């Protein structure tokens, strides 16, 4: 008889290995899925994982990995702080939108002036926008005990309505022939978050993501707040006795994740995207939740997970175009990744035992 037996202590080896095993299992079952669709499985997997990194046109795809991965990492780092303490901000997508709107709006207020003040001002406004949007669930939770999961999630839909509204009204390009969407910030030097080195994909958002990884690492390992976060997540009662102030912790975690999501939105709207439009948000805020867990809520893990997610997006699009794989199959493939991760996670706390249970 095969059964699951609880480990006396979580296995460190499995904790490190599960992401890798999950990726391998995804490749295996993804390959079977592609084969069932009548596509060459090995070539499909190779296209998704190999082509963007080492293929013929990798000189173009590698920088794109940074562009696609940076917002994911930036948002996921913020989310991981709260997740570690059991504070669930599910609404990063909304904070991302509000950051983009506030940042772009603050910049466009000065259009067409050229000044080196404008971009830093937009960065601050973007962070504040995301922070303020995250403060709504934070304050409601600390004052009235509402559930931050529900409130933050539902505020995403409110933010989307805001986005539609400003695209059609307040921020609409006056020279856009009545079509929705703001001016394109890429064609306005003072507000453009351009590549720092042409062709490298490195823009300020990538730099910010890397800085966030370092800060989160230091915070969690060397700082009292980081200790409180970990303690609250791992031993809530002990945290209470240690004098952790839960209100401050909720405000800090939600505020930080909101600000980072807002920054991600600002860097995206002023750089790769260029425009506030009705469909500006493409789900980074939600995908970042997957990235955070795939990275084991660890800053370095998140960095790697963000890269992996970006890889499957870019490789997935290549596979669609070159092998005519349906988009839905790629999405199933990405879904498998999280599914297998959670499934194999079981092995961290349990082990598979064969035979009769030992009597205690």
């Amino acid at each position: 008889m095969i059964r699951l037996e609880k480990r006396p202590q979580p296995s460190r080896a499995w904790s490190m290995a599960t992401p890798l095993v999950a990726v391998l299992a995804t490749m295996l079952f993804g390959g079977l899925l592609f084969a069932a669709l009548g596509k060459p499985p090995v070539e499909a997997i190779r296209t998704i994982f190999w082509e963007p990194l080492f293929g013929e046109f990798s000189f173009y795809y590698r920088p794109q990995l940074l562009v696609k991965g940076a917002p994911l990492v930036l948002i996921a780092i913020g989310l991981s702080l709260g997740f570690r303490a059991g504070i669930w901000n599910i609404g990063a997508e909304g904070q991302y939108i509000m950051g983009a709107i506030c940042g772009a709006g603050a910049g466009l207020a000065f259009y067409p002036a050229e000044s080196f003040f404008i971009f830093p001002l937009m960065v601050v406004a973007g962070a504040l926008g995301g922070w303020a949007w995250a403060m709504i669930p934070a304050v409601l939770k600390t004052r009235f005990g509402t559930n931050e999961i529900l409130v933050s999630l539902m505020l995403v839909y409110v933010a989307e309505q805001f986005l539609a509204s400003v695209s059609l009204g307040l921020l609409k390009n006056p020279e856009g022939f009545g079509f929705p969407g703001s001016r394109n910030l890429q064609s306005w030097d003072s507000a453009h978050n351009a590549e720092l080195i042409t062709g490298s994909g490195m823009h300020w958002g990538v730099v910010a993501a890397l800085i966030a990884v370092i800060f989160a690492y230091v915070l969690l390992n060397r700082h009292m707040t980081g200790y409180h976060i970990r303690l609250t997540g791992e031993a809530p009662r002990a945290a209470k006795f240690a004098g952790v102030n839960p209100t401050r912790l909720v405000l800090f975690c939600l505020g930080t994740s909101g600000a980072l999501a807002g920054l991600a939105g600002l860097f995206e709207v002023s750089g790769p995207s260029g425009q506030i439009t009705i469909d500006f948000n493409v789900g980074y805020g939600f995908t970042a939740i997957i990235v955070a867990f795939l990275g084991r809520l660890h800053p370095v893990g998140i960095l790697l997970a963000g890269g992996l997610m970006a890889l499957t997006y870019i490789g997935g699009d290549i596979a669609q175009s070159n092998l005519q794989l349906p988009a839905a199959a790629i999405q199933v493939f990405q879904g498998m990744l999280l599914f297998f991760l959670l499934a194999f996670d079981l092995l961290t706390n349990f082990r598979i035992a064969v035979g009769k249970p030992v009597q205690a």
Partner: protein
Amino acid sequence: MKLTNLLTSAAVALGLAAGAAMADTTKVGFVYVGPVGDGGWTYEHDQGRKAVEAEFGDKVETVYVENVAEGPDAERVMTQMALEGADLIFTTSFGYMDPTINVAKKFPNVKFEHATGYKRSDNVSTYSARFYEGRAVQGTIAGHMTESNIIGYIGSYPIPEVIRGINSAYIHAKKVNPNVEFKIVWAFTWFDPAKEADAAKVLIEQGADVILQHTDSTAPQAAAQAAGNVITFGQASDMSEYAPKPRVSSIIDDWAPYYIARTKAVIDGTWESKDTWDGIGAGMVGIGEISDAVPADVKAAALAIKDSLADGSYHAFTGPIKKQDGSDWLAEGETADDGTLAGMNFYVEGLEGDIPQ
């Protein structure tokens, strides 16, 4: 710019390599905003792609990527297609406008065709359909058929394209039924069955017995069917599975003739950048079969409008027409110019409510 050079030289090198390997294969790429199975907008573009394949056989190779988000993702997908040797790329959503222009700059030898936009360059053409002509036919049928005199309209986004459709439908419904009233719900989506169904239900509860939609799913048709005595029109695609009732007719986007012509132009080396805005006459806007639920005289009236639009003897916006605020727009016999139509941001007289800002 270094990247530009790099990309261009790569494209040139690849072009040469491809040219040697498969001398007479033209590669045509399609970038879709939705899934090919949406039964509406993207579905019809994909039908156009299949028509290109059927027309040219081995001479062309088509590739597509579906569900591409507007913005940087679209830019990456287009770049990738150009790198992989596409000669012609159709980008089929308004939001692909700036990405198309950006990528086209890097690949001067690749031709781009952007649907529904207004930015062109030496290697970027734009194309769109005069859907408002189809709305004139719809409005005529709707005005005749309504008994409650309330016509519901599900708007997607308040952009000129959609506002043009509302105005055209209203003008022609009013022409045959002076008591007609329009109720407009903005769904703020192109494709969301749940929202569209809600919008349709709200309109039906408010007494509408005709539902017009500018969204792409069949959810409003299902809602109308459930409610009983309500008629609808297929949007973008024929939606004939709901015929003969509630769906009594439809506006069909038929991109096939255009896609075939433009592909042929690339094969022949005669492609040049231009703006195309075709209607019923050129076959880009199709009117789906008017079902038997419509009385014969109404059907005849609708077909008469359709024919006069097709042969150019009638324009869907012919004066006298006033704007909603009562100011004059078109004098007796005057027809609207394309510039005003392209940027239309006002309702005509008689429509109630404001355009969301």
